[in-house]
């Protein structure tokens, strides 16, 4: 059953995607950012991937485009997973938000935004969630030094 679903997804989107491969049991699809919402909607409506597990990003500073925005989907009917990736450059890190499709995207996109600076077009609420108001910078980018603290309360002594 699981092989069937992966094959059908690859058959449906293989031609329009940039890369389709198997990654240790998960089907990994790389698409252009403009196609992201369309592929996600198709995964949800046609193939039954009803659970958006996670939204995250990977920073490759020596490469253009710099960021990989990574989505993981799960189907509670067929028990298979799909990874969707889109590459965005650092000067225009914009992708479409998946909030209209999945409410679990709300918090995940907020975190991805504050950690990497990815803009999610369509998500009206991109307030910092794990970081605080007044934090400058995007800590998970490779050029943010780990030890740079931005204390809110002045230190004693």
């Amino acid at each position, binding site marked *: 059953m699981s092989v069937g679903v992966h094959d059908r997804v690859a058959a449906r989107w293989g031609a329009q995607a940039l890369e389709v491969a198997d990654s240790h049991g998960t089907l990994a699809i790389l698409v252009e950012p403009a196609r992201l919402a369309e592929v996600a909607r198709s995964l949800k409506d046609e193939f039954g991937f009803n659970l958006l597990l996670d939204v995250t990003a990977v920073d490759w500073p020596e490469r253009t485009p710099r960021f990989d925005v990574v989505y993981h989907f799960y189907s509670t009917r067929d028990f298979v997973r799909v990874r969707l990736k889109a590459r965005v450059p650092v000067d225009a890190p914009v992708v479409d938000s998946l909030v209209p499709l999945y409410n679990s995207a709300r918090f995940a996109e907020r975190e991805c935004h504050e950690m990497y600076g990815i803009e999610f077009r369509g998500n009206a609420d991109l307030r910092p969630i794990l*970081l*605080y108001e007044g934090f400058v910078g995007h*800590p998970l980018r490779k050029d*943010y030094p*780990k*030890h*740079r*603290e*931005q*204390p*809110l*309360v002045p*230190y*004693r002594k």
Partner: protein
Amino acid sequence: MSAGPQSSRSPGALEYLTTKKDEFVGWARKFSLFPYPFVTACCAMEFMAVSSSPYDTDRFGAALPRFSPRQSDLLMVVGTVTHKQAPVLRRVYEQMCEPKWVIAFGACATSGGFYQNYAALAGIDKIIPVDLYIPGCPPRPEMVIDGIMKLQDRIARDRHPILTENF
């Protein structure tokens, strides 16, 4: 207690009374600590363990947590304090009334533990004064009890002026 010699003739008498008063107040304060468990992370598991039956803090009088800083006198900072949480901790500390003591419970509260990065405060003594540090990640309940007993010894030996300088 019989009335001692007049203090104008023998200044030791007043000091005898004040040390006895300090011992009495110290004894009362050390056995009626009202902790404010400022609980954040994994050390909470050991805090729950030390508060419950096997390792009871009730024996030391420190069982009843008061979840309002106005009503408590022992601030136990249990777990990592991050920069986001720091204003909250500072406000809670400022809202407590004198006398108050602070226990840094666990490695993260003491020094930041092994989270030395942009997010974690490297030790709560950067923002509030600490009376006792209990190391451990998380500390065993016996260590916590040892720490509370040390704090009690300190409270017992401390001076307890009725009119403090803030009066």
